[in-house]
């Protein structure tokens, strides 16, 4: 399962130093194996809490290469996260529940601008985004949620 999917705005709540996400009955496809080609329709639910700590790093673009990893700007805090999940294949052939935590592994949260937004002044909308990462805040959407909307298959450095 390596997908970007759109979810309702209210699935994410930012409060103080934490960001929580609650997703229920998300339709996805289980790729089974790393870079697998077989995909089985499945349903996933999960809850995760990200907690930031310390002082933020101010990120400035250090490369003008649009394909590079360092052509973005923002403010990022180190963050831990933990969560629980349940998943089941729609054909009933497999289901599982589990929990996970970052426990020392890398994580971060904050605000970011990339692409055409790099270099945009930190005023107005972007300043609002910066502030949203700090105080209690929940952003409402004017866009309809479109569940599910898998956009592309991709891989991770960790097994699922």
């Amino acid at each position, binding site marked *: 399962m*390596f*997908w*970007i*999917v*759109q*979810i*309702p*705005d209210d*699935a*994410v709540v930012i409060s103080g130093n934490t*960001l929580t*996400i609650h*997703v229920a009955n998300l339709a*996805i496809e289980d790729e089974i194996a790393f*870079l697998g080609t077989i995909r089985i329709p499945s349903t996933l639910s*999960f809850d*995760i809490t*990200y907690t930031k700590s310390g002082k933020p790093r101010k*990120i400035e673009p250090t490369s003008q*290469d*649009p*394909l590079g*990893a*360092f052509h*973005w700007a923002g403010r*990022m805090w180190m*963050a831990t996260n933990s*969560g629980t999940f349940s998943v089941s294949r729609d054909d009933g052939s497999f289901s*599982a529940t*589990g929990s*996970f*935590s*970052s*426990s020392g*592994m*890398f*994580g*971060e*949260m904050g*605000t*970011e601008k*990339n*692409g*055409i937004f790099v270099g*945009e002044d930190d005023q107005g*909308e*972007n300043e609002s*985004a910066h502030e949203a*990462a700090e105080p209690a805040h929940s*952003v409402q959407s*004017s*866009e*309809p949620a479109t569940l599910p909307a898998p*956009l592309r298959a*991709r*891989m991770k*450095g*960790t*097994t*699922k």
Partner: protein
Amino acid sequence: MCTRSKLVCAACLLACGCLPLRGQVYPVPIPGGDIFPSVGGPITFVNQFLPGVGTIFDGLNAEPHGIVNTSGIVAMGYTAGTATDGANTYNIGTDIRVYQGTYVGAMAALGAAGSVSSRAHGTFVEI
């Protein structure tokens, strides 16, 4: 049915097929990413970086987002844990990322399934 009628029907079907897509703004993946060699398999290019420190990561300040032309909030982190199906226990790893904010993506435009840039707001999770 004459050729002209068939063409008109085909054009109508194409137009109707595009209607549900209009108004929805599709986020565009970042153009860069990691290239993974695969033993015995094809090399894989993935539109994603792996922020972090260490030989298998792309650097502390590597791009954490999976969508380009965006301005907003991002959260990510690598984890480890366990799962069970009731009979077996599995070790798992996750890299789940949350994106929320403004983005400029692709919106369908009537015609030959073309698209145009459009600004939108949305929340996404990468699993």
